[in-house]
Each structure stands twice: as C-alpha cells, then as structure tokens.
C-alpha cells in the first residue's frame, strides 16, 4: 500500500546503507520530527512539561541502556545510579563555575570513568551474576548520595540546579528546556542508528550472540563489552544531567533510586531489545500508560457509577498496567518494536500475504 519496495533499485553499496531506503519510512520520520519540533508551539505548557519532555528524556535513557543491553547483551540493573553520577557531577561542576556544556560532558565523563572502572570487575562474571553485581552499583551510589554530604548535600537534601546556558544564552523557558532535551535525544538517536550499520554494531552483536565465534573472527569480546559499558555510561550520565537540569530543576537521591533503574529496564524490554524505535515506544508506554490509565479509570468512574470504593478504584489502573505489560510480552516477546515491525511487514507485501516471515 504505502510501503513499496518495488522500483527501489540500488546502484551503489552506499545506497543500500541508507537508514530509510523506503520513501514512506523516510517521510514518516520527517513527519514525526516536524511534529516533535513544532510541539512546543502547539500544546500547552502543562502537556509539554509533564508528557512530552519526560518522554523525550526517558527515551534517551532507554536508548543509552539499549546499547548495553540490546546490542552487547550485558544486563544492567543500576542504570539510574549511572544517571545519578552524571547529574550530581555536572551540578557540582556548574556550581564550581564550569560552563554548562562542559559540565554536561564532565558529568558524562565521570559516569563513564566510574562505569568502566566498575565494568572491569563486573565483566569477569556473566549473566545473572553480572546483573547482581550491577545492582551493587545502585546501592553504592545510593549510599554515597545519602551519606556523603560533600556530594549529596546531606541527608534528605535537595540540590537546586543552576540555570543552564548554551553558548552563553541562558535557558530559562519551557520551550528552551524542551529543545535542549530534544537535541540531546537526537544526537543519541543518530548514534544508535549508525551503530546498526557499522562494524561496531556487528561486533557488539557478535559478542552478544556467541563470544567464542566472535573471537575467532578477531573480535576482542572483553574490549567491546567495555566499549559498550563506556559509551552507555557516558550517554546515561549526560541524560541524567539533562533530566535534572530540564525536568526536575534539582537533584535528590530519590530521583535516581532502584525503582527508576527497574523502570528503565522495563522500557528497554517492553520496547524491544536492540531497537531504536522500541526505546521510544517503551519509554512512552512505561511512562505514559499509567497516567492515561489513571485518567481513563477516574473518568469512567465519574461517568458511570461502578459502585466500588475509592481505594479499589485507585488500584485498577495499576492492575491494568501490569496486565498490559504481560499481555504485550506474551503476544510478542521481542517488544513493541516487533509489533510495529510485523504490521509494517504486512503492509510491505499487501495485498499479498505470502512473504511474511
């Protein structure tokens, strides 16, 4: 129908490496980009700040974790801690007078150094053992943030973030903050799209699938796992800082607790491991589904009288939310991105259904 592979003839190898060889895909991406860019002028500040901005930021976080989990196949249960390191370091750096741009990079670099230093020890173990040892990072960082006043600001403390400024222009409006988050998200997305089509991505997948076969091809699996840890931690650190500067306007340990780590993990898994599009779907689902379900149930309760008590009513959205996650994963274990892909493939050959696979 809209997707047509017919009449797309590549005449060079370069053309086959295009991100979106099918015109419909390309225009879809352009349309989504335009909507995302014009969104601040089309929706109210409330929607922008409480729906779109967090969606963009959490998608970036999910993308960054996806490099480590989806590509390199290394599970990380303490990703919020990595983000915390980035956020706290950049806030402290700015308070010491470092310009915003450098503070962000510094935050990312600190997260990277701690992430890699930790990766050195954690990568000696595999699978579940790695998962448990990444959990240790979460608890270590949590402890440091609450018990070391020089970093966390003391027990129960909240550190206000200084006003961010890009190239000397202070970012004080909602729109400015949204574009800052959006710009960072675009950079990470482009990187992740490129990973898919270069030797780096292939090497990471090789390490994930069969490390012995990778090594026979000259791939140093330990090195590539460390690379994945490093890049993923850098992105996570900067994203954590962006989250603090644009969304919360402050840093507290609770913003980067174990709950948040699990949520990012859920975003990656529900969205689809190793999928760029899936990270956006996953973040959107995990973040926005509870809000929408809540509004829906409250709205319905007001319209029709269910005759159930308020306390039960407040639990219904949670039940639905958990049920939805389970349903999606039962229906398609490869996540929301795979569901989209199935639909797309159906239309790719429509009206002929024979070449589905």
């Amino acid at each position: 129908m809209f997707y047509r592979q017919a009449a797309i003839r590549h005449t060079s190898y370069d053309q086959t490496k295009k991100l979106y060889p099918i015109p419909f895909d390309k225009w879809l991406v352009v349309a989504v980009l335009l909507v995302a860019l014009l969104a601040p002028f089309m929706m109210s500040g409330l929607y922008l700040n409480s729906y779109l901005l967090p969606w963009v930021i959490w998608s970036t976080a999910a993308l960054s974790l996806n490099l480590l989990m989806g590509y390199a196949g290394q599970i990380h249960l303490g990703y919020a801690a990595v983000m915390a390191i980035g956020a706290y370091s950049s806030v402290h750096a700015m308070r010491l007078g470092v310009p915003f741009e450098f503070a962000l990079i510094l935050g990312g670099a600190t997260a990277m150094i701690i992430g890699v230093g930790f990766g050195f020890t954690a990568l000696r173990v595999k699978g579940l053992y790695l998962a448990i040892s990444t959990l240790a990072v979460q608890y270590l960082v949590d402890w440091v943030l609450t018990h070391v006043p020089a970093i966390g600001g003391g027990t129960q403390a909240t550190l206000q973030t200084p006003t961010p400024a890009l190239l000397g222009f202070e970012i004080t409006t909602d729109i400015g903050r949204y574009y800052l988050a959006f710009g960072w998200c675009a950079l990470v997305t482009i990187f992740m799209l490129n990973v898919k089509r270069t030797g780096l991505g292939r090497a990471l997948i090789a390490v994930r699938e069969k490390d012995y076969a990778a090594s026979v091809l000259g791939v140093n699996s330990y090195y590539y796992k460390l690379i994945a840890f490093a890049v993923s931690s850098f992105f996570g650190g900067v994203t954590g800082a962006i989250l603090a500067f644009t969304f919360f306007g402050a840093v507290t340990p609770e913003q980067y607790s174990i709950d948040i780590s699990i949520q990012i993990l859920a975003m990656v898994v529900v969205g689809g491991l190793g999928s760029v599009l899936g990270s956006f779907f996953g973040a959107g689902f995990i973040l926005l589904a509870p809000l929408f379900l809540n509004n829906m149930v409250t709205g319905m309760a007001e319209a029709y009288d269910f005759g159930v008590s308020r306390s039960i009513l407040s639990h219904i959205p949670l039940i639905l939310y958990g049920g939805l996650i389970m349903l999606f994963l039962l229906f398609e274990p490869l996540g929301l991105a795979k569901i989209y892909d199935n639909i797309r493939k159906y239309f790719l050959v429509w009206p002929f259904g024979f070449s589905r696979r």
Partner: protein
Amino acid sequence: MNISKSAEPPKLLSCEQIDRSFGGLKALNGVSLSVSRGEIFGLVGPNGSGKTTMVNAITGFYPPDAGKVIFNGRDITGIKPYLIARLGVARTFQNLALFKGMSVLDNILLGRHVHMKPGVLSTALYWWMARKEEVANRQFVEEIIDFLQLQSARDEPVETIPIGLQKRVELARALVAEPTFLILDEPMAGMNQEEKEYMARFILDARDEMGVTVFLIEHHMDVVTGICDRMIALSYGEMLAEGSPKEVITHPRVIEAYLGGSH
C-alpha cells in the same frame, strides 16, 4: 627471511608434541604435525579422537598443556584466539557458529573485522568516517559472495536458510578475512552428495585462487582422499599415521582404529 637450502618447502604451521588433557582424559598426547604453504592438509580419526581439540589448541581456545604451536615462524602457543585470528588464521565450526538475528550479509561482513577499525567516533561521524570503510569492505564481501554463489541468500536472516547454505556462509565468513591459513572443522557434515561436491570444489578453488592453506577435518573419506595433499590420522589423542591419503587410509593401525582389531 627464510632462505633454507633444503628441498623442503617452508612450513606455515608446525605443532610440536602437543599435549592437552581435560581432567583425567588425555585428549591429545604428543601430537606433532606440520603443514606446508599452499597445501590441503587432512586430519581424520574416529569420533572423540581429539581432532577438534587439536584445532582448539592451534586457535587458542584450549591452549596446549605442553608443546609448541609455530605459525608463520612465530610461536603462538597460548596466545588469545582473537590475536591468532589477526595473524591470518580463520576457521569454521563443526556445529555452525553463525550469529542469529543478523542477515547473511552482516554475518559475512563480520569476517572483515580484522581488516576494519570500527570505533565509537567513526560510528558517531558515520558520514565522514565509517562510510568509506563500510563500502570498500562490502565490495570485497560481494566478491566472495559471487565466488561461493550466495547471491540469492544475501539478505535473508541467517537462521532461515538451509543448513547446507549456512555451512557455505560460514566458509564465506572465514574467507573474507583473507586468511593465510584456513581451518575447516567438518565443513560437509550433514550434507548430501551434491552439496559435498560443491563444497569440495570451493575448497580447491579457495586454495588455487586465493592461495589459502587449508587444514581440513572431515569424516567423508571420499572427499578427504580426493582433495587432500597430505593427512594424518588420530585415535584417542595419539597419532596413528601420517603421509599421503592413500598411505594413511591403508595403514593397518588406521584400519584397526576405525573397524576394530578383528575386522
């Protein structure tokens, strides 16, 4: 340079007195062999005779307990597998080791890893850095795809194609690395007669056109005797016989190992 006056051609690989045991089991016991440049060298033996262990000792997966592996004049005993791969040793696996979830093309492209420098920066700046390298390597990969007649399978997910083709993809992945030494661990296991003939032709062509020295483990005796220049036979980790295919398969100890003492 190696300017020896002897009539012997220079050896590409020589293994000296390789020992390897797993717990109490002696998988290899004092095995020595040497492979000359441009040769197709066969390794045969009954199941469990230590053939794959020998390959693993050469490629660094199970470093030998004792003995030396010398490749191209360099001692590679105990070196990490990925470093040995970079010296020009490629191999295929007995039970296919292709990467599921990737296309046939991407699997073969991975074989080019030793000739590429993938990095974070070149990936981030794809249009200015990685692009040229990707296209150049794709070009070489396409030549091998033509060579092994894999054009029609190029874009398929690798796990969906038949096993005979998968074996060929693995050969392609090994060949695109432009190895000097190619180890094939039962490349024809589970193939029918026609596929076997194709594979034998590809191995001969790889040697003749690309100058690859081949180390072949195979159970199909017709193939081994047909294409190998020299071979050795192993049984329970011991060397039974060495020489031309005819000498080896008619050797009384080899016949005994395969058929039992009172055949």
